[in-house]
């Protein structure tokens, strides 16, 4: 096995080009085998090839910014094909002047950059017990990028939003394969749509969006679940009532009050998800790793929806004791906060874990709130590690 190059991130973060992924010196790798730095293969796990659902490898979570080629991909349907030069964004509904924007129109408008975590609501679904249906994501349906584009509030201002507006309904250019399958339609409340950090993004990490990430434009809703970040954004409809369609009225809902694990929840108790919850993820070490005794730098990322990360604690003894990790200075608010902890590993088997606390006082729980669709998994992950010479 190739030894990893160690690279400490500066306060300004690690440059994407030529980035190296930090790993502890691993003797045996049990759960995955990411490619060596610079390799073009081995960057994502294929969970389903159609529609394309791919998750990031664990060692991706040792840098603050997630490169596009390591960024997870989540789709409900096949990605739209066709000549995107004809693409237009339509803004309609409860507005004084309905608008149509071409890509060139949007590029001419004032551009804003926001760093934010995009996380699929179902990230970690595969860990829920009792098991729930859906793509069985483990840790990898999340990433942090710099998103650049036009503020949605600027587009709404150009159209003139009516006083009775309460929601914006969102639809992309993707189409289900079968006519009877509902279209992917989502929506956010007008207050979040008018927030200065909510963008119609054209760029991701400085590059035009890739087709899998919604080229030419996608919504960026910082701090909120990924299902609101509509890709190939084609229609924005301002409404007084709530958005319509299966994926808003039934899908992507979370119990208002947690029920008994495995039990169905009455539909009227299911509410649309909004904010992400506090979470951390170890990137430099994984379940089943065998490492040599001596000092190891444990590295990972932490984030929370609309709150900041206040602290991350580390256990190297299965949760008996916790010690604070060092947080990197760079704190964008919505983005990954990198944490590091130097562990002087002694021979034997143990469990290593990270626990994040946010500025609102929310702490990662030992067990995530079970829910029928497996959303918002954020339990503390305990990885079993063996230390031996």
């Amino acid at each position, binding site marked *: 096995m190739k030894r990893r190059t160690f690279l400490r991130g500066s306060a300004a973060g690690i440059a994407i080009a030529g980035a190296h992924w930090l790993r502890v010196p691993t003797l045996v790798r049990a759960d995955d085998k990411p490619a060596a730095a610079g390799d073009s293969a081995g960057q*994502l796990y294929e*969970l389903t090839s159609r529609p394309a659902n791919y998750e990031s490898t664990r060692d991706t979570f040792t840098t603050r910014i997630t490169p596009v080629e390591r960024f997870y991909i989540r789709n409900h349907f096949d990605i739209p094909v066709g000549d995107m030069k004809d693409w237009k964004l339509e803004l309609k509904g409860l507005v004084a002047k309905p608008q149509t924007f071409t890509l060139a129109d949007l590029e001419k408008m004032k551009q804003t950059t926001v760093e934010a975590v995009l996380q699929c609501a179902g990230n970690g679904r595969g860990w829920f017990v009792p098991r729930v249906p859906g793509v069985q994501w483990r840790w990898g349906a999340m990433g942090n990028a710099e998103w650049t584009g036009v503020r949605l509030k600027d587009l709404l201002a150009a159209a003139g939003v009516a006083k009775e507006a309460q929601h914006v309904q969102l639809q992309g250019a993707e189409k289900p394969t079968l006519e009877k399958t509902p279209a992917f339609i989502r929506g956010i409340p007008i207050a979040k749509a008018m927030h200065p950090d909510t963008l119609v993004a054209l760029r991701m990490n400085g*590059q035009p969006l890739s087709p*899998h990430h919604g080229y030419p434009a996608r919504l960026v809703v910082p701090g909120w679940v990924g299902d609101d970040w509509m890709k190939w954004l084609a229609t924005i409809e301002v409404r007084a009532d709530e958005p319509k369609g299966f994926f808003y009225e039934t899908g992507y809902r979370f119990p208002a009050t947690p029920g008994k694990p495995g039990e169905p929840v009455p539909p009227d108790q299911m509410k649309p998800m909004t904010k992400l919850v506090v979470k951390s993820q170890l990137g430099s070490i994984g379940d089943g790793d065998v490492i040599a005794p001596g000092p190891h730098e444990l590295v990972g990322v932490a984030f929370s929806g609309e709150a900041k990360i206040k602290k991350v604690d580390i256990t190297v003894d299965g949760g008996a004791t916790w010690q604070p990790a060092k947080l990197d200075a760079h704190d964008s608010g919505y983005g990954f906060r990198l944490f590091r902890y130097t562990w002087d590993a002694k021979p034997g088997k143990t469990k290593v874990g990270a626990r994040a606390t946010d500025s609102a006082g929310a702490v990662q729980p030992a067990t995530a709130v079970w829910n029928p669709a497996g959303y918002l998994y954020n339990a503390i992950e305990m990885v079993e590690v063996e230390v031996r010479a």
Partner: protein
Amino acid sequence: MSRFVIIVLALAACRSEDKPAPAQQPVPTQPTPPAAPPVTIDRDALLAGKLPEGAPETDLVNAQCRICHSVEYLTQQRLGEAAWKKTIDKMRKFGAVLTDEQAASLVAFAAHYWNPDLPGRTWTPGPPPPGALPITTK
């Protein structure tokens, strides 16, 4: 459920070609509890995301589920019968064409192979899908 057992026996008969055994006898590939029907697909193949060959339900999966989903969408699930029924009912609403009898047999089939007792599937990292890399054209 009885229909399902017949399917399993038919499969076992197919497999007996490479593993000689008395005619009409199921050939478990590994020890199973006496009450459980014999497993007729190699466990490694099951964990690698393969479908049992020759079952009528496999034909239904190929003809209906795979219109929209690659097969891993099914084989990575680990669900009990109630959850499989809910999922297949949803897919019928979304356009899968199945008779009530076919749907019931598909529920039993899926819950037999891809239930919570089956360990997690193995993942292999590979190249990103076409189009995943940043585009450079204007």
